[in-house]
């Protein structure tokens, strides 16, 4: 296990370094920099002023040199200033991250619980298979922006039970929860299908194993077979989906945040990338990619712990 960590961690670091360089160059290739914005705002700026301002901000340096300066800053814990918000990038990131963690955390917890329960039901009770399959198909086929709009039309416009979007003015927990219900439902429905499908497939596979028949022959009750024998084994492939969703937890949900007008990482990331805000975009991208890569490593380790056979060849 330690050998695997020692082998994979440097790979993760290397991937992140290359990723940051690629993202830096890609954002730099987009037209417009802060000086062009200043030029648009002030017609009196002449070519000499522009040269001076470029040198002042280090924009006369080649992109690669600017990336190097940024990277050495990051190594010292300096993430730089966000150009769009004129505040330290880490400070801008924090509220968006908190918003996304609340939204995605609730949605993914609900999706995983309901999805795994539905998948187990489909595998253990054949008569439930067709309905669970149908629900999973529909939930995967619905575009999430459309589902969000439908929920707004039904619960906010027609029934008037819940707010159509935004964030509460007061700090009370009940108000905050009321604003969370519709976006959480939108995201949970979209993510539920993957859990249900994969649990159903993995459980069905495990239930065919000879040691399940052996447990039945010994007279073990069905509930014990389902939860103690089958579920832990079926959980092995599920961990990979959980790992990918851990990345989603941090990257936020651009569509749901847009439709429900909530602050979050999806919107921040998009604004930063579109606004040529190198420091903010890179910090957010590295956070998301780093989380996903580390979660994938954690899932691989957990899978090996659950199924020692996987560990033999590496």
């Amino acid at each position, binding site marked *: 296990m330690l050998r695997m960590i020692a082998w994979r961690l440097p790979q993760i670091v290397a991937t992140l370094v290359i*990723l940051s360089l690629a993202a830096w160059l890609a954002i730099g290739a987009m037209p417009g920099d802060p000086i062009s914005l200043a030029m648009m705002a002030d017609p009196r700026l002449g070519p000499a002023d522009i040269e001076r301002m470029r040198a002042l901000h280090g924009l006369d340096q080649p992109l690669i040199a600017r990336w190097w300066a940024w990277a050495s800053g990051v190594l010292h814990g300096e993430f730089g200033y966000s150009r769009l918000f004129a505040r330290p990038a880490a400070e801008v990131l924090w509220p968006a991250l908190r918003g996304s963690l609340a939204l995605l955390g609730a949605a993914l917890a609900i999706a995983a619980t309901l999805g795994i329960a539905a998948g187990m039901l489909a595998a253990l009770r054949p008569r439930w298979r067709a309905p669970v399959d149908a629900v999973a198909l*529909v939930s995967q*086929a619905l*575009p999430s922006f459309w589902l969000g709009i439908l929920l707004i039309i039904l619960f906010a*416009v027609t029934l008037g039970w819940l707010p159509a979007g935004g964030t509460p003015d007061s700090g009370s927990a009940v108000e905050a929860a009321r604003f969370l219900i519709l976006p959480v439902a939108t995201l949970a429905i979209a993510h539920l299908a993957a859990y249900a499908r994969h649990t159903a497939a993995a459980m069905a596979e495990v239930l065919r194993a000879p040691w399940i028949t052996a447990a039945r022959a010994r007279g073990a009750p069905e509930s014990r077979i389902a939860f103690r024998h089958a579920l832990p084994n079926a959980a092995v492939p599920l961990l990979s989906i959980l790992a990918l969703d851990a*990345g989603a937890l941090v990257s936020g949900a*651009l569509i749901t945040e847009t439709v429900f007008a909530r602050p979050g990482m*999806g919107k921040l*990331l998009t604004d930063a*990338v579109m606004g040529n805000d190198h420091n903010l975009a890179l910090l957010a991208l590295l956070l998301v990619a780093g989380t996903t890569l580390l979660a994938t490593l954690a899932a691989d380790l957990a899978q090996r712990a659950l199924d020692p056979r996987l560990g033999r060849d590496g």
Partner: protein
Amino acid sequence: MTRLRLGLAILILLAAAAVAAPWVAAWLGVDPEVPDLLTRQSGPSAAHPLGTDELGRDILARLLFGARVSLAVGLAAALASTTIGLAAGLLAAWLGGWVDAVLMRLADGLLALPALPLLVLLAAMDPATIGLPRGGALADVLRIVLILAIFGWVGVARLSRAAAISVLARDHVRAARALGVGEARLLRRHVAPALAAPLTVAGSLAVAGAILAESTLSFLGLGIQPPASSWGNMLANAQDLVFSAPMAALWPGLAIAAAVAGAMLVADGLRREDALR
């Protein structure tokens, strides 16, 4: 079997609707791109079976013309992703070594990135900087297909790499190689048949994913540009109109869901057929 048939039936129906779009528009005597503010947001009538949108354009005609865009993007993007993915996967499995390592780390990196914000970034770029034509529905379709393929090839590449490696390691293939069978023949006779089934499944899933992604980009205003219609851009204004015209959001969303479900049913059906065999 029933899944496969149901999925194919849905897709064929939508394709027929896409083909029939100009005739239906001519028969109704409407132009899906020309606004008529005097008949805006009208309910269903003989002249406009599904009513009109906020600019007075016929919703049925826009829906049918939108089917052309959505299906074309879905099929073309799936084809592009599958082709690139197959080439990358085969190359990685067949050559191994550093080619394999570089391609697979590239795939890992792309998987670790937040896909949607980057799709948005790519969609917002000026197509002229990478030598693509600017403006027009066809140019938009081409641009979206290209963007979706950049992220779409990863899954197919991993899949075909795994399948090809497992075939190449089998005894009869190694025996064939030892007997001096050429590499091209080896790929054609042994690797290609083993890849056919998983690739068709992955391909139909890619169609579903591409249709969904196109509608999302168009909803955000970065995909197919009006006045050309796509199911996604028909919904772009739906949110502002939830109070005055809630029904306008119904049809395009249903069409997207039907197309995606159809492609996923085909994928599911093909997978089951393969498992039975």
